[in-house]
């Protein structure tokens, strides 16, 4: 018993429990939470994720422990639960296991998800304490954690896809958590649908990858691209990788809110603030970056895809930053800031700085979660529901001291104040771009991409520092602008509308500030994990813990700097980063510190300001360009279905039936003579059929013998002229008998005859065909030139002067003049000018087997009861050399 428990907690199996614990929490809270009290629900919700975090830490320590010294292969923790299902590829089963891999990349990510998840769960205990659907919230949150862990830990694409869509579902449910507000529910749907567009890309990308790599496992896929096996017949390797990566990246743009699919994330702020912190800032939205890092070996196969990622990331960073500058609500600003920071991460991935991008994922998780929770704390304090207008806040520094200090630290981090975590990660990204920019060899990626990314990100970084401190100054400095403006009650009932907020805000409870403090410390410190490898100007080397740690999990891209001095790029990046931070904060200080109005709103051109505030009007653009046409298409489809398809198949058919029945019923006159006349006509028609006899001769060839069978009928009598020489051999005199008094017809319905060469009337060349019937070519005294269509492609001896063979009949033999064809007769290639072949010979022209078949003739006369005589002459192709019982062809 004890061993069993111990076994269940073996390190590999721990991976399973990391996932299962939050899932169990979700199930328990979802099913029974409604009936339990809040403490119990909170205990289950927080306890499961806490245990999960504990297990993750244990696993991570174990992972560290397991790594061998030196350059030996990295050993990940792996656990395969069971085989989910399998597909078959090229005759081989490709199993899809519920498998978890805990390596450098997923280990870090798991810690982030469970760690920050735990903090946010604790925070939610306070934040959601008054909500009606407390249990539902924790169920969703736990479900999200489980899904995210599946996403992170998955060892193959389909299992990752469970988590990928699972987090989408939780995001949908949590955005629409307060479902009674229609706008929130609509925002949830928007998130799900936009994510689905991305999932479509992941799905297709997955299929391409499995087609190429023959496996869904990340390890195999990456291995195949490392080993140069990333090819498929009929595709260029680069193109294939490009297509696959672009589809995958489409998915990433959906999940990680990049252009063009970023529009859902700002709306997603409708969810409770802990959700925004956990899902829409720290974890879920970084899944795209995570996936790109997971598949980095595939991405580096395709410069095109990398460039696209870099450009899209940079543009997103820029666009979102400009929008954030003009927003008025806390969470909106933070949301656009998230989009912008995600752009940074993708830009890093795009220029090959995967470690830097993932480092930014890591640091961003801390400071952005802290910012969101801080915003939540502010909103909780002032009683804002949904979102808080910063122009109605201010001066909260003294009222919310703990919130203030953590918020400030995080702002510094995101703005890139040196020694704060964001500084290091952002600097690494800029460094990556600069390294590409100064690279000498343009073999992989164009340096201009590097400069574009560098420039764009530098501007975006400036803007980031600016709008973050704008947010900070407006919220925490100056006077509290809602003091005395509201009665302070019913905060749930009104949002950031006309009224101000709670006149006397108070600091949040410890369950909320505790996590804030932890995250704030994290926002400062975690950056030290990724100290730069090279210090600017001095050129001193520092241990590069982060990069070394992630090395085995990521593809590695090296650029040779143009001047040969690696320090150039480092210096450029450092200067750009620091000056961006300084300019941004300085501007914000001068414009917003202790101020209550928005100088941008008054100073900038009104059209530009409103354009920015309206988020570049992208939503409106999408509505006009995508949504409305698609919805219109749906309406058209439904209209077509009712008015065209249905009408065509139902109304038209029934109309035709009605019409034809109308016409046909005209014949029902009710006059018996008319019916009688028609009947008489029918009888007369039958008479006509019986008037003349129908011989219907059916020959059956048995080698040289042919057996003829004639049709039967009313009073039929027969006589046969089997060799068509004009005298009737059957019936011979004494057997002839007739009920009609004639002595020349008999009652034999069949006769047979053995044909000799004297009876041959002609010859036919039979060419075999693989499909369908054989091809028959009638021969005569005049030469017939064979049609090349019959002979197929390989009939010529040499490629030039293509004259097909000619065939004619001479006496009882067939003469073939091969011309330029390869004619094989009597087992060898015919080299003579002409070859004579008797009936029954086999030959081959090119690839086509042929046969010379003689044709014989027979005549039958039939007399019926009316005394009418019909004569039928049949030509029969016989087979003189064929085995008995072969079939015969009638040539009429």
């Amino acid at each position, binding site marked *: 018993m004890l061993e069993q428990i111990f076994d269940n907690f073996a390190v590999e199996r721990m991976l399973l429990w990391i996932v299962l614990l939050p899932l169990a929490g979700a199930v328990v809270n979802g099913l029974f939470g409604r009936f339990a009290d809040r403490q119990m629900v909170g205990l289950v919700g927080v306890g499961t994720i806490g245990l999960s975090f504990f297990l993750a830490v244990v696993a991570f320590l174990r992972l560290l422990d397991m790594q061998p010294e030196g350059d030996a292969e990295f050993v990940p923790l792996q656990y395969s639960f069971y085989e989910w299902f399998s597909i078959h590829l090229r*005759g081989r089963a490709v199993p899809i296991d519920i498998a978890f891999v805990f390596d450098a990349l997923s280990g870090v990510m798991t810690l982030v998800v469970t760690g920050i998840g735990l903090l946010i769960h604790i925070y939610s205990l306070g934040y959601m304490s008054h909500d009606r659907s407390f249990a539902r919230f924790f169920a969703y949150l736990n479900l999200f954690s489980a899904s995210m862990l599946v996403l992170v830990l998955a060892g193959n694409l389909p299992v990752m896809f469970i988590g990928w869509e699972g987090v989408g579902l939780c995001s949908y449910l949590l955005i629409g958590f307060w479902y009674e507000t229609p706008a929130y529910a609509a925002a949830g749907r928007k998130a799900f649908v936009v994510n689905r*567009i991305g999932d479509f890309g992941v799905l297709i990308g997955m299929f391409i990858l499995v087609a190429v790599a023959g496996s869904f496992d990340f390890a195999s896929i990456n291995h195949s691209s490392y080993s140069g096996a990333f090819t498929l017949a009929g595709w260029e390797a680069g193109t294939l990788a490009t297509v696959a990566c672009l589809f995958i990246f489409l998915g990433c743009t959906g999940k990680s809110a990049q252009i063009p699919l970023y529009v859902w994330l700002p709306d997603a702020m409708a969810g409770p603030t802990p959700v925004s912190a956990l899902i829409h800032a720290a974890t879920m939205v970084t899944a795209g970056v995570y996936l790109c890092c997971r598949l980095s070996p595939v991405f580096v196969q395709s410069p095109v895809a990398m460039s696209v990622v870099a450009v899209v990331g940079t543009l997103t960073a820029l666009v979102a930053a400009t929008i954030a500058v003009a927003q008025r609500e806390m969470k909106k600003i933070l949301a656009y800031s998230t989009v912008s920071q995600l752009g940074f991460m993708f830009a890093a991935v795009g220029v090959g700085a995967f470690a830097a991008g993932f480092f930014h994922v890591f640091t961003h998780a801390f400071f952005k979660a802290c910012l969101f929770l801080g915003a939540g704390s502010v909103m909780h304090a002032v009683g804002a529901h949904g979102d808080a207008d910063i122009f109605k806040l201010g001066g909260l520094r003294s009222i919310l001291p703990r919130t203030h200090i953590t918020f400030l630290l995080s702002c510094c981090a995101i703005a890139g104040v040196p020694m704060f975590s964001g500084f290091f990660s952002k600097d690494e990204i800029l460094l990556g771009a600069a390294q590409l920019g100064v690279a000498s060899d343009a073999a992989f990626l164009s340096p201009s991409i590097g400069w574009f990314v560098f420039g764009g990100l530098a501007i975006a970084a400036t803007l980031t520092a600016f709008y973050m401190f704008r947010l900070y100054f407006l919220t925490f400095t100056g006077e509290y602008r809602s003091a005395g403006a509201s009665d302070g009650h019913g905060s749930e009932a009104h949002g950031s509308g006309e009224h101000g907020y709670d006149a006397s805000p108070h600091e949040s409870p410890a369950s909320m500030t505790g996590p804030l403090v932890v995250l704030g410390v994290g926002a400062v410190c975690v950056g030290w994990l990724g100290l730069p490898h090279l210090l600017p100007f001095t050129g001193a080397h520092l241990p590069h813990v982060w990069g070394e740690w992630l090395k085995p999990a990521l593809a590695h891209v090296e650029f040779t700097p143009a001047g040969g001095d690696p320090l150039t790029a480092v210096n450029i990046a450092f200067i750009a980063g620091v000056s961006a931070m300084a300019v941004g904060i300085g501007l914000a200080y001068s414009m917003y510190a202790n101020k209550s109005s928005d100088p941008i709103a008054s100073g900038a051109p009104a059209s530009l300001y409103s354009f920015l505030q309206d988020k570049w009007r992208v939503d409106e653009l999408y509505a006009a360009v995508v949504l409305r046409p698609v919805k219109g298409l749906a309406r058209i489809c439904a209209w077509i279905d009712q008015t065209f398809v249905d009408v065509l198949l139902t109304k038209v058919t029934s109309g035709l039936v009605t019409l034809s029945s109308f016409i046909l019923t005209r014949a029902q006159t009710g006059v018996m003579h008319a019916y009688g006349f028609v009947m008489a006509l029918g009888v007369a028609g039958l008479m006509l059929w019986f008037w003349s006899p129908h011989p219907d001769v*059916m020959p059956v060839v048995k080698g040289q013998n042919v057996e003829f069978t004639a049709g039967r009928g009313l009073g039929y009598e027969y006589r046969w002229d089997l060799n068509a020489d004009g005298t009737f051999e059957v019936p011979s005199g004494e057997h002839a008998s007739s009920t009609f008094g004639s002595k020349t017809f008999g009652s034999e319905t069949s006769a047979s005859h053995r044909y000799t060469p004297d009876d041959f009337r002609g010859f036919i060349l039979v060419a075999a065909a693989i499909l369908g019937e054989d091809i028959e070519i009638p021969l005569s005294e005049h030469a017939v030139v064979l049609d090349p269509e019959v002979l*197929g492609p390989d009939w010529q001896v040499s490629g030039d002067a293509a004259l097909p063979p000619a065939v004619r009949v001479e006496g009882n033999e067939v003469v073939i003049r091969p011309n330029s064809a390869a004619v094989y007769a009597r087992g060898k290639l015919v080299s003579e000018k002409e070859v004579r072949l008797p009936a029954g010979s086999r030959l081959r022209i090119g690839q086509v087997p042929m046969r010379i078949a003689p044709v014989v003739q027979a005549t039958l006369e039939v007399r019926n009861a009316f005394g009418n005589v019909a004569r039928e002459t049949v030509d029969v192709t016989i087979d003189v050399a064929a085995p008995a019982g072969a*079939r015969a062809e009638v040539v009429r």
Partner: protein
Amino acid sequence: MTDSLFHQPALAEVLLTVLLGVPLVTAFAVLFMPRQWPAAIRRLSVSALVINFVLSLWLLGGDYTGAEFQFLEKVSWIESLGISYKVGVDGISLWLVLLTTLLTPIALYASWTSIQTKVKEYALAFLLLEVGMIGAFVSLDLFLFYIFWELMLVPMYLIIGVWGGKDRVYAAVKFFIYTMAGSLLMLVAILYVATTYKTLAGQYSFDLEQLHRVVLPFEVQLWLFAAFALAFAIKVPMFPFHTWLPDAHVQAPTGGSVILAAVLLKLGIYGFIRFAIPLFPLATQYVGPSVAALGVIGIIYGAYCAWVQKDVKKLVAYSSVSHMGFVVLGLFAMNTHGVSGSVLQMINHGVSTGALFILVGVIYERLHTRQLDSFGGLAKSMPWYTTVFVIVTMSSVGLPGTNGFVGEFMIMSGAFLSESFIGFGRWGRLLTLFAATGVILAAIYMLHVVLRMFWGPLSKPEHERLPDLTAREHLVLAPLLVLVFWIGLYPNTFLKRTEPAVQTFLSDFNTKWLACRQNDAERLLRPDPAVPAGGPAQPKQGSPSKQGSPSQQGSPSKQGSGTAKPSSAPSRPVAQAGVPGPAADTKGDPR
């Protein structure tokens, strides 16, 4: 003699007959019960159907690893026409039978309170319907299949026409005529194949196994395939033959809709798998991509149509068109996971759409409307209902972890990775691309429903006190929910039994396809087409289409067979007597 006289058949030997017999006998019993006892009639029929389900679980005990049919029974019926009562299940029909036996009691139980008139006839119709459905799934004789196929038409027609909504008669007649038109063409095709068998083998047979041996010329295959395919395409229903479905669903009572969507539609696909495709391989290979393209059109078109529907039931009906498009796509991919995915997706669709129809019925019973506009905010008053609805919605959307995902994933990967000869090669990628957009559209229209029904403020204050799901409704939905997650998380229970059957299906298809391609003259394959005798192997190259260039190496059997067949009378048996056997090559796999 005495042995057979005193031999008591074990249940396993006559299990399928028992499964057919239980509802039939119950139907007789119900027939003689007084109509004044509706409760007794309901109880008797539901419990009989439940017992039948429990009995049908016995089917799982069969050995589905091989190519043979399990629980095979064969009794000669009309000897002169070679018609026999031959039934059996393989890994494909097994699940469809179980789906039938599971959903029929559920459907009937779901109508427990909503049907108050003519209860006796209603129960009778369901019992007979189950006989027809099970029979159609287990028949291995074309004649028997046709009888069951038509048998289930009548109860369904009555269910829609008698207990349906306002325009029930229009919908019922439309349903009946559509289905009938297709099935009559199918009957003609069945008779053609059987008579061809008669000319070739000298006696009639409707035994599927025997008829599989018939090789027909390409053009004939095309026509016959078209006849079969029309019948099945109407049943599936595939675009553009789907317009009966929304009408039928909207008018049918809840129980009828459940059975219609969950089981009857599957018979179309099943017909393709069991009959149309194996009998006519050349035609399948030739038109398969086009049929699959129709399926893909159905996916997108059905989704678009569903999106703008105002009536929830109509919306779900159109979503069926969309989902069944996936099934068609996977089937014609003609590879193991494509076809297995199709089979699985059939079950999935039965479970999810069945549950959706039950859920729509639940709300219709409470509010007497199905218009989306009249709902809103129901999550507040009916939390359990909402939970179940969202779960089923997610299954319908194909969220991983639910059943819909596994099926759709296998189908799309099957289509994407389809081989070029028998499947659709490069076209598969394009088709998959379009099919995958259906996944997006599914999310759009299903979430549209959820949004309109459950989120937002309550549309009417009196909805505040709507009763949530009753115990009976929970009981009805519980098995379906279990299946949603079971198939979603551990589909191997199902796939492990299905895949061998699918592999048999595919290898038989390949063998016959090769035999047909080599020489599609009208002839009979050896009893076991996998072991050919005579005739050296032929390499196959070039286009597999009928218009093969004659330059390809001729079949040696042709060479030795005298002259070509008589064109005036192509099917005299005497002319066939001495033809050497076709060279059916199994080693030369085209791939």
